[in-house]
């Protein structure tokens, strides 16, 4: 089969959405209302072509003065003046009518200017519904324009201003003629704004459907984040078949015995419990155990900034900073106030692919839940994508989730029903005995491994961290073991009578 000649846009993330680029010679319509980023995409398309792919380009402007475009481009680090000076770019200011007329003439001086530098790309900013020279309709007029561009063998991006509120409801006739349509939008989300783009159609190649987020970043340009739900490589799906023999030590004394020697490699473990139940401590010990073994670990923290995580680690005797300095731990913090889930996932993906951790922790999933809301599928889709990413890269991952119930749990994940996606679930509870809340741990689920689902007491000691206490407790300890109670998780445990008989096994 003939491979299509694809023009790479060079815009970060966009070529992935376009499955490698846009077929050469396509007329690409950038449709969107004012402020959606059409000019920035178009200018970057030409800039990247001229500066990275040896494809000189032309920018045609009808309303914005070229010096303003140059000034704005400089904010992204794009030196358009230098490209002009070296004959790789021409910026031409004209009127729509003249431009349209010139494209219909084979000997146009305007097109001769483009040919003089060997232009392969063109961006036309501010196309509006074109008047047909001989009284025809706008669709004919646009068709003539597209033919003119095609004759010149230019891959063209045309920014089309949309003024309608419902872009899907009122299709411009240009959209039927264009080969590729990229619709840009900007919408308010919880008092912030979210930019997104959608490749509505693109002739001659495959592309990722759906709306993908993007940002316009000073000093860089556009960065497109593929929709988190979009299917990834087949390899990612195959990653789920994990090694059935190797075990990954948890780093919690006493826990490995409860999970058959450790977690499976590339398995997904959910640690669920109320705030203060010890989830973050467990996570830090999991990371520290990796560092002790010389394994790379990624810790994604959403609730606590790095300095606080380092201090917490210090308080349980873990020198996390030293592990970071040795390149064994990557601590990544993103404040949750203005999550853009596609972007967030793309960042995690980049870290995983670059740092190649063997262990990972996210503390905590509930922060995603509160940012994304349970109503839509976003949270589940995001979690599904994260699980698949970690499995593809054979990362053994632990995810903390805060369950709001203080004593016992009536459900593991509350509104966020993702427990079916995970391999292991560890429940962290408080148990009220006398006037004290004591820590309890139950291994509730272990995929492909046996589990007793007994509740074990654990303790967290300053400078030492967490450990799971032996069961039954040694006689020297002045506490009645859990086995001496009935209904520990029923929120009203009862003491056994007569006194407990020690287990024989």
């Amino acid at each position, binding site marked *: 089969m003939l491979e299509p000649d694809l023009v790479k846009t060079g815009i970060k993330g966009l070529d992935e959405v376009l499955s490698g680029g846009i077929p050469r010679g396509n007329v690409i319509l950038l449709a969107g209302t004012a402020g959606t980023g059409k000019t920035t995409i178009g200018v970057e398309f030409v800039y990247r072509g001229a500066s990275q792919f040896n494809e000189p380009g032309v920018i045609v402007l009808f309303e914005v003065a070229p*010096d303003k475009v140059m000034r704005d481009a400089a904010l992204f680090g794009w030196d358009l003046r230098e490209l002009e000076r070296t004959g790789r770019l021409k*910026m031409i200011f004209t009127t729509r009518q003249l431009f349209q007329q*010139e494209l219909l003439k084979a*000997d146009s*001086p305007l097109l001769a200017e483009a040919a003089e530098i060997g232009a392969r790309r063109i961006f036309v900013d501010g196309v509006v519904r074109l008047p047909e020279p001989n009284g025809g309709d706008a669709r004919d007029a646009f068709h003539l324009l597209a033919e003119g561009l095609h004759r010149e063998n230019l891959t063209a991006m045309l920014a089309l201003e949309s003024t309608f509120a419902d872009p899907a409801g009122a299709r411009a006739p240009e959209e039927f003629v264009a080969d590729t349509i990229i619709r840009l939008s900007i919408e308010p989300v919880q008092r912030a704004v979210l930019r997104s783009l959608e490749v509505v159609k693109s002739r001659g190649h495959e592309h990722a459907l759906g709306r993908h987020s993007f940002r316009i970043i000073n000093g860089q340009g556009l960065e497109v984040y593929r929709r988190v739900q979009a299917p990834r490589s087949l390899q990612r799906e195959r990653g789920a078949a994990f090694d059935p023999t190797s075990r990954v030590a948890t780093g919690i004394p006493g826990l490995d015995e409860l999970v058959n020697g450790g977690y499976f490699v590339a398995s997904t473990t959910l640690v669920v419990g109320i705030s203060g139940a010890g989830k973050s401590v467990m996570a830090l010990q999991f990371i520290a155990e990796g560092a002790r073994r010389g394994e790379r670990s990624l810790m994604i923290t959403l609730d606590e900034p790095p300095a606080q995580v380092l201090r917490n680690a210090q308080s349980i005797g873990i020198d996390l900073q030293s592990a970071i300095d040795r390149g064994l731990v990557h601590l990544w913090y993103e404040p949750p106030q203005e999550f853009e889930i596609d972007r967030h996932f793309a960042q995690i993906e980049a870290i995983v692919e670059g740092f190649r951790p063997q262990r990972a922790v996210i503390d905590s999933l509930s922060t995603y839940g509160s940012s994304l809301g349970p109503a839509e599928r976003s949270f589940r889709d995001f979690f599904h994508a994260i699980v698949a990413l970690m499995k593809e890269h054979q990362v053994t991952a632990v995810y903390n989730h805060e369950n709001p119930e203080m004593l016992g749990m009536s459900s593991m994940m509350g509104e966020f029903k993702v427990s079916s996606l995970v391999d292991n679930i560890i429940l962290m509870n408080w148990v009220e005995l006398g006037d004290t809340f004591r820590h309890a741990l139950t291994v509730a689920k272990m995929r492909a491994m046996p589990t007793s689902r007994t509740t074990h007491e654990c303790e967290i000691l300053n400078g030492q961290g967490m450990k799971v206490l032996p069961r039954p407790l040694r006689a020297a300890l002045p506490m009645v073991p859990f086995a001496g109670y009935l209904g520990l998780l029923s929120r009203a445990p009862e003491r056994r009578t007569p006194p407990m008989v020690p287990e024989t096994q």
Partner: protein
Amino acid sequence: MTPKRIRDLLDRIECLGHACDLDLLLFFYRHPQAFLNSERLAVYVGYDLPQVERSLETLLTAGLLRQSSDSTRPARLYVLTRSSSPLGGSLSSLLRIAATRDGRLAVLHALKQRQPPRLSGRDESEPVANGRPVPRT
């Protein structure tokens, strides 16, 4: 930016005589490659068409501007020739000054202060200085 500096630059560039000459230059400074007809240019710079055509001729003759050569078309591609012109350095300096509101007013003032028009019988919208095309240097 002193009046003397502006006068020196104007003396060096020599061909500028009318406010329209300056405003056209400023337009092409912001739009270094423009494909337009003179009617449209007149609308952009705000002078009457005959004056714009005279000023275009002045700038073209002085080599500050070049245009596409096809006379059968109403529109031409105008290209500001800052870097290739021998006057490039002075022109850039003058345009940088005139790019601000105060700077433009100062240059216009200096233009008015220059020697009166040598050609008689011209009204306010016509060139105030030499009027004749200045040969390329």
